[in-house]
């Protein structure tokens, strides 16, 4: 079986890789410190088995499983036994290894993987995979899919409780996130927070009147504290 290892901890990757080297039927193709890099790899390559850490920043192991279409066999690796019940919800998961992984328990997991009827799938034709991020793109997780948004096309982001509404030239997106998080991802050169609930693309402003801006067809309030920064950003005659 060909396999890949996904774990944000270098120590864990080294241990799993070493344990794999003791199994003649197993070949480690690649190791990844995060799930996004692995998804890119899976767009181009076929694997039989994935060793997947659950607890990773930004994009967890479960996010990863829900993002890829027809996942291959997966052995979860974690320091927390509490996720075991959730793991059984996925047919692709053949075993669940609690760190630190012992050689004996690892061997058992490999036997389970080899005996598992779950078929490895070719992901290369999937249209639901994530590409890597580049300077002008932002990826948002909507309904278990990572959707690419062209950053300069965003003209408004509005906070709506536990969600944000991202408005672009072509389409609007409702995403489970916070204004603070997206603010960190958007370039300061283009975007400005003008109110606790709104971030705007300064270049898309049509006009400014009193304490509001017109951007596309939306009239957005400008808070008193943010107004000086907005005025600084304008090329005033």
């Amino acid at each position, binding site marked *: 079986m060909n396999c890949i290892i996904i774990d944000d901890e270098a120590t864990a990757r080294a*241990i799993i890789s*070493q344990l794999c080297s003791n199994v003649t039927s197993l070949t480690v193709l690649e190791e990844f410190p995060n799930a996004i890099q692995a998804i890119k790899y899976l767009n181009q390559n076929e694997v039989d088995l994935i060793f997947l850490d659950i*607890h990773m920043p930004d994009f967890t192991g479960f996010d990863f499983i829900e993002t890829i279409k027809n996942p291959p066999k997966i052995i979860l690796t974690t*320091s927390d036994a509490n996720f075991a019940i959730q793991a059984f919800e996925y047919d692709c998961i053949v075993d669940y290894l609690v*760190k630190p992984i012992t050689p004996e328990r690892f061997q058992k997991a490999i036997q389970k993987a080899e005996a598992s009827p779950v078929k490895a799938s070719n992901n290369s034709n999937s249209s639901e995979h994530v590409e890597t991020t580049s300077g002008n793109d932002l990826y948002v997780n909507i309904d278990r899919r990572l959707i690419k948004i062209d950053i300069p096309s965003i003209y408004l982001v509005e906070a709506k409780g536990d969600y944000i509404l991202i408005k672009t030239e072509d389409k609007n997106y409702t995403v489970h996130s916070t204004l603070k998080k997206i603010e960190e991802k958007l370039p300061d050169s283009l975007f400005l927070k003008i109110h606790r609930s709104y971030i705007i693309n300064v270049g898309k402003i049509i006009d400014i009147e009193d304490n509001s801006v017109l951007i596309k067809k939306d009239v957005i309030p400008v808070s008193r504290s943010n107004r000086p920064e907005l005025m600084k950003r304008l090329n005033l005659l």
Partner: protein
Amino acid sequence: MEQPNLSYIENMSGGDKAFEQKLLDIIQKEFPEEKQVYFDNIEAENFKEAAENVHKLKHKISILGLVKSYEVAVNYEHNLIENSIEGKADFESILQNMTDFLKTL
């Protein structure tokens, strides 16, 4: 306090000394970085993030054979998730214990 040891590493390496050294080198590099991120988050009172850091550090605690310390870390991680720092002193003495041990290698 229980003392760190190399039993797990020696067991899983199957006598491969080169791998043992490689793994210790990785731990020596990664542990101080993870520890620093934890202390930064505690100082900034980012307890949820600190809980994530403790979660990751738990693996190294167990790799160094610290069974009781691992349980201390599990409880502390749960407390941090609840925005409580109960168990902080005990956890940080574990980190110091590991730091001292790694210096001897």
